[in-house]
């Protein structure tokens, strides 16, 4: 047994005794508290932040050196830019293998389409309506009217109704949609999302139910708070712009604030967290833990302006996003590629091909497209 292995155990016990004031049980030398104080001086000479940053910088530099050649080549024929930043300890081969023309070019997002479910269960395919009638289309429900045109859905009302009628809009993978709610609140819905909302809001509480991702521009009302409820949490605002991402197959709910302030809380909890502009709260559905970070908001709301923007996202996170947008499934045949990190931005309406060329060449990943599934693995030569 290695004596070094006792360090953790023994030091834990002594420190615990010191803190809980059981000084008698601590080792003799620690009874002299000046020793404790003097240690701090020695310790303070060393700054861990600088050392940690230099490790991260070193990793980046290594990678930029490795990838710069490929990046330059890639940029020549891609209209998109993507900077490969981090973590591959694999040596990149010194040559680029022949780029095979495969069927990746076929992968494109769907046309803008969605399904609207009315209060009585009747379903309207929003794509069909646009196809049949290029002009706007009207649907009446109680005191409200829905105008459907090329921008999306627009609700308006001629006064409060006696009973609350709900509509649900369902966005499939590969699509996105825009809805203007009755109170003037604008909602951009991302692929694979669902929003349930009252056709006319009640006087004292505006509440909508979200699964998936949406960007909200809530029209201001100081007397009538607006609530976005997801299966695990609730965001409440008076009038602001923010993004909520809460997919049922992802562990984390991300709420990002672009303007104003919002209050975030776990369903069933009385404790709420106030977010300020530029902050994002990441909440774990599984453990209930959360963290608030300062972020570049544009990286999280770019999708509504037809961009994919991402910074230091892992391949898994990027692929999850792409699979929703391009309607493909992903299979990882090598596990070591999952944590590769990338930054960049891309036009959402491009074919996915441009994206993958850079993964293939920059990070040495082999991508095969078969039966609407992308198979990803480390390139073998």
């Amino acid at each position, binding site marked *: 047994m*290695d*004596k*070094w*292995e*006792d*360090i*953790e*155990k*023994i*030091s*834990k016990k*002594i*420190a*615990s005794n*010191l*803190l*809980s*004031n059981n*000084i008698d049980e601590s*080792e003799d*030398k*620690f009874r002299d*508290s000046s020793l*404790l104080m003097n*240690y*701090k001086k*020695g*310790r*303070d*000479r*060393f*700054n*861990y*932040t600088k*050392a*940690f940053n*230099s*490790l*991260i910088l*070193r*990793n980046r530099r290594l990678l930029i050196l490795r990838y710069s050649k490929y990046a330059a080549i890639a940029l020549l024929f891609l209209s998109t830019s993507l900077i490969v930043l981090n*973590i591959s*300890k694999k040596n990149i081969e010194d040559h680029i293998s022949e780029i095979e023309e495969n069927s990746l070019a076929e992968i494109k997002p769907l046309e803008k389409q969605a399904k609207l479910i009315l209060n009585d269960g009747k379903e309207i395919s929003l794509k069909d309506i646009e196809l049949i009638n290029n002009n706007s289309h009207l649907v009446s429900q109680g005191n409200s009217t829905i105008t459907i045109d090329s921008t999306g859905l627009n609700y308006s009302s001629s006064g409060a109704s006696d009973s609350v009628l709900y509509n649900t809009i369902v966005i499939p993978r590969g699509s996105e949609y825009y809805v203007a709610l009755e109170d003037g609140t604008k909602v951009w819905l991302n692929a694979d999302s669902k929003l349930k909302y009252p056709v006319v809001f009640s006087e004292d509480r505006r509440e909508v139910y979200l699964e998936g991702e949406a960007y909200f521009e809530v029209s201001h009302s100081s007397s009538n708070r607006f609530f976005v409820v997801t299966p695990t949490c609730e965001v409440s605002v008076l009038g602001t712009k923010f993004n909520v991402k809460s997919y049922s197959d992802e*562990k*984390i709910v991300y709420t990002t604030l672009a303007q104003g302030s919002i209050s975030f*809380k*776990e369903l069933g*909890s009385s*404790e709420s*967290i106030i977010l300020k502009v530029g902050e994002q709260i*990441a*909440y*774990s559905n*599984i*453990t*209930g*833990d*959360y*963290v608030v970070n300062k972020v570049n908001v544009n990286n999280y709301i770019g999708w509504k302006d037809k961009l994919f923007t991402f910074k230091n996202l892992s391949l898994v996170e990027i692929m999850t996003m792409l699979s929703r947008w391009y309607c493909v499934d992903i299979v990882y045949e090598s596990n070591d590629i999952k*944590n590769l990190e990338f930054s960049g931005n891309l036009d959402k309406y491009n074919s996915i091909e441009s994206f993958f060329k850079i993964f293939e060449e920059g990070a040495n990943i082999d991508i095969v497209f078969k039966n609407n599934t992308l198979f990803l693995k480390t390139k073998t030569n």
Partner: protein
Amino acid sequence: MQLVKEYDKFITGINSKDRFFWKELYSNYYAALCNYSSKIINDRDASEDIVQNILVSLWDSSMIFNDISGLTSFLYKSVYNRSLNFIRDAKNKVNANLDTTYSTENLESYYISLAIEEEVINKFYKALDSMSSQQKNVIILTLKGESIESISNLLSISINTVKTHKKRAYNYIKDQLGDSFFILNILIFLK
């Protein structure tokens, strides 16, 4: 909802080279290890180089740790070995005379106890840092041997407040630190 400390996740994060957890690793060990090394070699700058080299090669390696104990002992032992090498190399340069005293078991034991000492202080301060400043003051004064009455005078707070702080600090340690004494400052999730 609560901020959590979780140290299985920490070890997993270290093993998978997760940047977030590596920052925690630096925050928790870097200064302690440097201080430890500088006690052996008595050279501040060289001690930082030694520690950074160990951490960088750990990042580049595929080494896996099962628990905090394994990680802690690996770090201190590596710093110990590299510090001795540093002394040996330095001596080589000066008079090419290898000092053999460093291989004795006694000396190793001495340096292990030094490492434990370093780690005690490390854990002590990490825990102290996570308390409120008044709780912290009460604990420090208590350690200095001050009575409840004199702490009350020194900090201009009532005797009951001192008692409450002591009790809270004690409960805090019991509840929060418990078995996993290791504290993570920020909560952990993802992956």
